[in-house]
C-alpha cells in the first residue's frame, strides 16, 4: 500500500488528500497515517506555506479566523517526494509495468 501510494503520487503529479484517498480506496485517516509514515522514513518531506500563517499565538485575528478549528502546521500543509521517494516510486512503477 505504501508503495502504491508513492506510485500514485509520482504518477499523477500534484494531488490532494481527498483525491489520493479516493484513488486508493482508503479512508482519509489511513491516508494521513501512511503519508506521515512515508515522511518518517524519508520518502516525503513536509512543505510549509510561508508568510501566510505563522500560527495562532499572538495573531490579532485568532478570535475570528476561520482556520481556528484546525490551525495549519508544517505537517498539515503538504508533502513533496524526496529523491529517495522518487527512486522508490520509479522502481515500483517499473515493477508494476512489468507485472501489467
Amino acid at each position, binding site marked *: 500500500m505504501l508503495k502504491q501510494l508513492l506510485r500514485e503520487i509520482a504518477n499523477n503529479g*500534484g494531488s490532494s488528500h*481527498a483525491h489520493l484517498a479516493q484513488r486508493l480506496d*482508503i479512508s482519509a485517516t*489511513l491516508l494521513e497515517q501512511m503519508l506521515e509514515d512515508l515522511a518518517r522514513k524519508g520518502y516525503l518531506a513536509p512543505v510549509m506555506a*510561508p*508568510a501566510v500563517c505563522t500560527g495562532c499565538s499572538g495573531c490579532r485575528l485568532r478570535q475570528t479566523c476561520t482556520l481556528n478549528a484546525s490551525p495549519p502546521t508544517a505537517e498539515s500543509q*503538504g508533502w513533496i517526494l524526496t529523491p529517495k521517494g*522518487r527512486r522508490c516510486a520509479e522502481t515500483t512503477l517499473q515493477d508494476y509495468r512489468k507485472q501489467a
Partner: protein
Amino acid sequence: MAHPHTAAYTRDRGLVDYGAEVENEIATIHAVIEQNADLSTRYSPRWLALKLLEEDEDILEKLHSNQNHTGLIAQAATSVEHLRAVYGDDVDTIIADRRYGWIHGLVKETVQHTTTERLSLSDKIDRIATNRVLGIPIFLALMWVVFKVTTDVAGPYLDWVDGVIGGPITNWVVAILGVLGLDGGWVESLFVDGIIAGVGGVLVFVPVMMSLYLALAILEDSGYMARAAFVMDRLMHALGLHGKSFLPMIVGFGCTVPAFYATRTLENEKDRILTGLLVPFMSCGARLPVYALFAAIFFPENAGAVIFWMYITGIVVAIVLGVILKNTLFKGKEQAPFVMELPPYRLPTLKAIWFHMWERTRGFVRKAWGLIMATSVIIWVLLAIPVGGSGAFANTAVDKSAFAAVSQGMAPIFKPAGFGNWRASGALVTGFVAKEVVVGTMAQVYAVEEGEEAAESTTFFEDVGAILTSFVGATVDTLKSLPLIVGIDLFEGEEEEELTDLMVAVRDDFEATSNGHGALASLSFMLFVLLYTPCMVAVAAERQELGAKWTWVSVVGQLALAWIIAAIVFQGGMLLGLG
C-alpha cells in the same frame, strides 16, 4: 540463501503475511531467538524478529548490551542485507507496506457500510474546482470576477476620494496656511503640489485596494485560495517547474518582499534562485493603482478585463521564462510531485473578512504616509529647482525643472515603446522607490503643469456637507454598478463618468507622444510597469536571498525584458493598426 529453520516455522492465522522472502527471514531469526530461553520468554519471538528486521534502535541497543546476543544480531544483519538486495528498498518500508496492505484488506473484508458513504460538500465542490480540466478556467473566472469587483464597484468611491482630496482637504490646508501667514509661497506649493498631489494621488486608490483585498479575503477565508495554489502547482509541475515554487509566487501577488523570503522553503539552490527570479513577475498590489489609472483613462469600458490580463500576463511571463531557464541555465533533475491537504470550504465571517481587508489596507495607507510622502517631497524639490532657464525656486515652469532635465535625458529610450515623454519616464524612475509612486509622481507632474485653479470659496460645513452628499452619490453609483460584474448594464443610457483633470492630462500627453496611439502606448506602459525592476525594498530582499550576482541579473534582465515586450507590443500594435 538456505534457511534451515523455514520448514519448522508456521505462521499463526490472523498474523500479517509479509511475503515469502520476509517470512523466511523471520523464520530464520525466530529460530535463533528460540535458542535463547531468556529472550524467547521475555519477548514474542516473531515480534522481536520483526523489530530486528526493521532495525529498531531501542531493541538493537538492548541486545548490543549483552554479549550472548551477538549471533542473533549478526543473523538479523544478514537477513536485512538479503532482503535489501532482493527488494532494493528499506526492510522497514517493505514491512510497513505489507502491514498497510493487510489493514486495507481487513477493513474491506470486515467493515460493512450500512449507508452509502456520502461525499462532503467540500469534496463535491473540489471535484469541480480542482478538476484537471476545469480547475484553471475556474481559477481564471474567479480572478476575472475579483478584478471586475475591484474596478466596477470601487470606481465611484475612487472619484469620491479624488474629489475630497482635491477639494475640501486642499481648501482646508490652504486655509490653515493662510491663518499661519504661509499661503501663496513655496510652503503652500510644497503642501498642495508636493504632499497633497503626491500622497493624495496614491490615496485616491484606497477604495480600489480595499475592493481587491475584500475579494481576496473572501477567497482566502472560504478556502478557495488553497485550491488555487493547488491548481497552479499542478500546472507548474506539468511544465517541469518545482512544486514548491507556487508558494512564493502566490505570496508575490500581495508583495514581492515576503515572496523573496518565501523562496527559503526550497532546499535546492538552483530551484531557489530560479523561483526568486520569477517572483517579481507576479503583479504585486502596489502596481494596481497604475493599472487602475491607465485602464480607467484608455479602456473605461473594459477596465476590469485590462487589469485581469495584466495579472495573467505576469503569470504567463513567469511560467514561460521559468520553462526557458529550467531547460537552459537551471537544467537539472525532474521536479518532484506534490501532495497537499486542502482545508474544507468554510463560510467566511464578516468580522474575519473585515480584519483581513483592513490589515492590508492599513499597510497601504501607512506606506503612503511614510515612504511615499518622503518621495513626493523630494520630487517636489526637484520640480521646484529651475534648470537652464529663467525662474526661481518653487516658481519655475515644470519642464524647466531639475526633474524634467533628468527625465528628458531618458525619454528617448522609451520612444519605441510609445511613451517617450519625460513625465512618464520620470514616473518610472521614481517607481523604483515604490510602485505606487508612479501614480503619485504623475499626479504631481501633471497637477503642477496645469496650474492652480481658483478654488471656490466654501465654508467648513459646506465642505463637510459636500463630502457626505458625494459619498451617498458614490454608494448609489456603486450599487448601480453591481450588475456589471455579471455583464448586465441596467443603466446603459446614463451619462458616462467624466475623467478627472489628471486623467485628461495623462491621456493628452500619451496621445501626443505616441502620435495618436494613446491606448496602445498606455498598454505598453502598463506592461513595462508590470515587468520592470521591483521596488528598492524588494531588490534589497532579493540581494539578501539570491546574492549580488543574481540580483544584478534580475534587475538588468527585467529592465531589458520589460523594454523589449513594451516595444514589441507598441510597434506590433501599430503594424496591425491597433490602438
